[in-house]
C-alpha cells in the first residue's frame, strides 16, 4: 500500500472536516456548514506531485461539495479511499488550467443499506490531462455522474470505471463533451451485477462542429452473474464534425460456460471459478492506470471485492 509522504494532504471527513495540510502548494478553505460543508481547494504549480487523501470512517451521512482548481502546470493526485458507512451526496467541481495534470482515484466501499451519489463536473483547458479511475461496490442506491468538458485544444481525458454490484440499484453516467479541436477521450466501464442488482451505464460522447482532429473511444462491458440481476449499457455518440476518429462498443452477458468448465477441469470449484472469472473480467483495463502503485491498489480492490 502506498505510504503517505510528509507533504501529502489528508482530508478526513468525520463529525467535522479535519485537514492536515503540510503542503505550501495546496490551499484549502473549508466553510464549516455542518449540513453541507464546502471545501475549496487550489493547487499551485509545484516541483513535487501534490497529493490529497480523502478518508472517512464515520457512520454519519455526508453531504459535501468540493471545488477544485488546479492551476497552470500543476499536478494533483487525489485518492479517495473512504469507507462511507452512511449515505453520501458529494459533488465535485473541477477546473483545470492549461497544462494541468489531474489523477483521481476513488476506491470506495459503501454500506449495503445506504444511498450514495457522486457528481463530478470537470472542465479542462488546453493541454490538460485528466485520468479518472473509479472503483466502487456496495450501496443500496448508487449514482455516479461524471461530466467532462474538453474546452480547449489538446486536452485529454482517460477514464475507467469498475462497479461491483450486490443487490444494488446503480446508475452510472458519463458525459464527455469535445468542445475544442484535437482533444482525446478514452473511457471504459466494466461492471459485475450480482444478486438482484440493476446496473445502468449511459455514456455519451458529444463532438461540437468545430472540433476537428478529435479522437474518442468508449467501451462498456457487463457481466450478469445471476438470473435476477440486470445490466443496461447505453453508448451514445453525437458527432458534428467529419474529421474525427470515434469508436464505441457495449456488450453484456453471463459468464462463458466453457471458461468455467476449463477452470473446473483444473480443480477449481464453481464459486472460486466464478470469482476468478469476475476478477479477470474487471481487470482487463487496469493497464490504463500508469501509476504502478495505484494499479496494484486497484487490482487488490477487485480481488478483495469479487
Amino acid at each position, binding site marked *: 500500500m502506498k505510504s503517505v509522504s510528509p507533504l501529502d494532504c489528508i482530508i478526513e471527513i468525520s463529525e467535522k472536516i479535519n485537514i492536515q495540510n503540510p503542503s505550501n502548494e495546496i490551499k484549502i478553505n473549508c466553510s464549516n456548514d455542518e449540513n453541507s460543508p464546502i471545501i475549496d481547494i487550489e493547487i499551485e504549480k509545484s516541483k513535487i506531485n501534490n497529493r490529497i487523501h480523502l478518508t472517512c470512517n464515520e457512520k454519519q451521512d455526508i453531504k459535501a461539495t468540493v471545488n477544485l482548481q488546479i492551476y497552470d502546470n500543476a499536478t494533483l493526485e487525489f485518492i479517495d479511499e473512504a469507507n462511507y458507512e452512511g449515505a453520501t451526496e458529494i459533488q465535485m467541481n473541477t477546473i483545470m488550467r492549461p497544462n494541468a495534470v489531474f489523477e483521481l482515484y476513488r476506491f470506495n466501499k459503501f454500506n449495503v443499506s445506504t444511498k450514495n451519489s457522486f457528481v463530478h463536473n470537470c472542465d479542462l483547458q488546453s493541454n490538460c490531462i485528466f485520468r479518472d479511475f473509479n472503483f466502487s461496490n456496495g450501496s443500496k442506491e448508487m449514482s455516479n455522474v461524471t461530466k467532462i468538458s474538453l474546452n480547449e485544444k489538446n486536452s485529454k481525458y482517460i477514464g475507467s470505471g469498475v462497479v461491483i454490484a450486490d443487490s444494488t440499484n446503480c446508475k452510472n453516467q458519463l458525459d464527455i463533451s469535445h468542445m475544442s479541436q484535437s482533444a482525446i477521450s478514452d473511457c471504459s466501464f466494466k461492471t459485475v451485477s450480482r444478486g438482484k442488482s440493476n446496473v445502468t451505464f449511459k455514456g455519451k460522447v458529444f463532438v461540437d462542429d468545430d472540433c476537428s482532429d478529435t479522437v474518442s473511444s468508449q467501451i462498456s462491458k457487463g457481466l450478469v452473474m445471476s438470473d435476477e440481476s440486470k445490466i443496461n449499457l447505453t453508448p451514445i455518440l453525437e458527432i458534428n464534425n467529419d474529421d474525427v476518429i470515434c469508436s464505441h462498443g457495449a456488450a453484456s452477458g453471463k459468464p*462463458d*460456460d*466453457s*471458461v468455467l*468448465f*476449463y*477452470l*473446473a*477441469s*483444473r*480443480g*477449481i*470449484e*464453481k464459486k*472460486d*471459478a466464478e470469482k*476468478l*472469472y469476475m*476478477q*479477470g*473480467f*474487471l*481487470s*482487463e483495463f*487496469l493497464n490504463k492506470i500508469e501509476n504502478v502503485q495505484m494499479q496494484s491498489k486497484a487490482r487488490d480492490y477487485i480481488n478483495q471485492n469479487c
Partner: protein
Amino acid sequence: MLEIKNLDVSVEDKQIIKNLNLKIGPGEVHAIMGPNGSGKSTIAHTLAGKPNYLVEAGNVDFKNEDLIAKDPYERSLLGLFLAFQYPIELPGVTNASYLKQILNAHRKSRGENPIDAGEFLKILKEKSRNLNIPMEMHSRFVNAGFSGGEKKKNEVLQMDLLDPSLIIMDETDSGLDVDALKSTSEAVNKLRDGKRSFLIITHYLRLLEYIEPDYVHVFGDGSIIESGDKSLASRIDNEGYEVK
C-alpha cells in the same frame, strides 16, 4: 485406474457414445484414433464432466470411485487431467496467477497450505525451463494471444504442475509444428513414470511416434471397433479408417 463399462452418452439429445467399454491400468498408455465425428473428443469431455454431456447408461470407475457422480472440479482433484484441444482464454488473469491458483486448489484438497510465493516461483521456473517456456509468458493473460504451440505447452505445464494420475490428451498434436510436437511429446514422456496413465486421442500416427502407446483403439460410430498394439496405428496411417 479407469474402467468404463457400457457407457452411453448423449449431447443435445443425440447419442454420441454407444456402449463403450475401456479399461486402463496404472502406467498404461492408451491411444484412441478415429475419423472426424466418431466421438473421440466426446469421451474426453464426458470423463472430465463437461455440462450437457449426458450419461444415459453405464458407469465409469476411477480409482475405485464413481467418476460420473462427481463434479468436474472433484474429478480433477481426484487425479484426472484433460489437456484441451482448444485451451480456453482467460483475459485479465495472468498465467502465473492462474497456475498458482490451480496448484493451491489441489494443495487445499490434500490439506496442505497455499504454496509460498518464492517456492512457487522456483517450481514454475524449473518446469517452464523443461518445456522451453519463457517466464515472460506467465505475465501474460491465460492463453490470450498465445500461439498454438504456446497453448499446448501451457497445457503440458499444467499437467506437470498438478501431478495427475490419469492424463487425457485431446488432439494435443493439432496446431503443432514438428519442433513443437517433438518438444511437447518429450515433456509428456518425462511424465511417464510407470504409475501415471494416459489416454491419447488423435487422428494421426505422428504423435504416437513420439509418445509410444501400449494399446491402440480405433473409434467409430461412438464405440471402439478395433483394438491392438502400436502396430495398429501404423496400419491405420497406411490404410486409413475405411479399411479394417
